[in-house]
């Protein structure tokens, strides 16, 4: 990343904070709610385990670890990348995206920076707390497990960036459809649970076709010292998925025709 890009990112975070600080009470509440919202899935998992059953082959701590990793990956990816979905949603609808296109920097970088959302960072608090809680009940991971975890977590953020690119790019054609985020949320549900709940073909699809398992399952498995043969196939798939997202963005931005104004 270039130094000037880092400066732009810093300024975007500052502007995002200043903008939200105008309504401080609402900002603090939104920040806390974002954190609480993300704890719903772990709560459901807890209630399931409390009712006396389990996800086959997974203890409560192991299942919660997957959800903690999901939260951490999401808390990095969403504030940085998913704000651009709403920027393009608004600008394509109003026909003002042309202004971004006229600026002397990459439209993708500008859209991403404009969409930086400090509010979403609240999720990381939930992720870290859950991570520490789950980690307490698991064997201490070795240095190799930590290293592999960090590598796979980076890939997880990349996959989420790929999704952000696909969703954002689709709004150049599907003008004003704010429900694309709902579509993503419905797909991401599959990445919050242990792989053993899915049939083998579905596990294969989530590793090799759409790398949903890379978002949380594989990084969590790496940390827990579990081995999954599909994990290896999922690594190139994650790169390919991000590449496909970027190509889709390039293709769709060319088709943008200023729907409003």
């Amino acid at each position: 990343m270039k130094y000037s890009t880092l400066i732009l990112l810093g300024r975007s975070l500052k502007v995002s904070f200043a903008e939200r600080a105008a309504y401080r009470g609402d900002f603090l509440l939104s920040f806390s709610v974002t954190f609480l919202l993300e704890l719903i899935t772990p709560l459901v998992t807890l209630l399931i385990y409390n009712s006396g059953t389990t996800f086959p082959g997974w203890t409560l701590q192991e299942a919660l670890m997957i959800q903690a990793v999901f939260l951490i990956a999401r808390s990095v990816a969403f504030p940085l990348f998913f704000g651009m979905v709403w920027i393009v949603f608004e600008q394509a609808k109003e026909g003002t995206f042309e202004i971004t296109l006229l600026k002397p920097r990459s439209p993708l970088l500008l859209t991403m920076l404009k969409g930086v959302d400090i509010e979403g960072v609240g999720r990381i608090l939930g992720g870290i707390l859950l991570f520490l809680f789950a980690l307490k009940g698991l064997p201490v991971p070795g240095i190799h497990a930590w290293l592999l975890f960090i590598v796979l977590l980076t890939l997880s953020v990349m996959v989420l960036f790929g999704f952000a690119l696909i969703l954002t790019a689709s709004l150049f054609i599907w003008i004003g459809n704010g429900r694309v985020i709902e579509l993503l949320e419905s797909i991401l549900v599959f990445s919050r649970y242990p792989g053993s709940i899915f049939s083998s073909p579905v596990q294969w699809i989530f590793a090799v076709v759409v790398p949903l398992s890379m978002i949380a399952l594989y990084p969590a498995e790496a940390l827990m010292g579990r081995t999954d043969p599909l994990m290896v196939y999922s690594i190139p798939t994650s790169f390919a998925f991000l590449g496909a997202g970027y190509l889709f963005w390039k293709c769709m931005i060319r088709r943008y025709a200023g729907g409003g104004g």
Partner: protein
Amino acid sequence: MLKAVALVTYKEWAAYRSHMLLSLVVGPVFFLAQVFIWTAVYAGRDELGGFTLNQMLLYFGASSVIYYLIMDFADWNLQMLIRTGKFLTYVLRPVPHPFFAFSQKVGHRILGFLFEFIPVWLIFFFLFDVKLIPAKPFWAIVSVMFSFVIMFLLNYSMGILAFWLTRTDGIRALIRLFRDLMAGVFIPLSFFPDVVQKILFFLPFQFVSYVPTRVFLGSYDLAGWNMSIPVIVGIQGLAVIGMLIFTALLWRLGIKRFTGVGA
């Protein structure tokens, strides 16, 4: 009046029917996730939280399609009008805004019935083999109608908070979170600890989703209290009256605080 506003809203939103058709993917994908999750946790078990696996899938199926009949965004709409000052134009109209907003919801949900409820119901029926046929159709319809009104009143009350707070994103998200959690959207309320179930019984949230879904399935129990369908629907009716009084009081207090500039 209701018919005219509902018709205009219907026509307005019909222009965006492709957006609504996204529910044909979102609803079944969410449901597919539930199928995987619950099939796995029921392995070797007949019953959990008072539900068999089949009943659990029916619960989530019914809950999904009922949502298409009752959802609205009256809270977002009202807070936006207040925050931007556009609400001023509604104060000048000879129709109370709550009634206007309710009429809009009627039109919007008629469209939802055609483009979301029916297609998703058919997908569940043919693709997932989940037969969403109400056990007692009359009571199911009455219960859904009540939850339609309660959902509106809850959301509208959230919107009214903008008279005090101006920007309400945080508080609305918080209330929505508790509403859905305590309405049994994420997991049936019978999975909660007994003491929590007892508290939930006395809150209005169960009437949004849990009660209509249970009425749809033909039996109701919460916190160990079993009730016949007519009795719980009757209680739901009382909750509608309670919510009407609450919203009317909140509205009276809130409208006094409105100051609009421009618009």
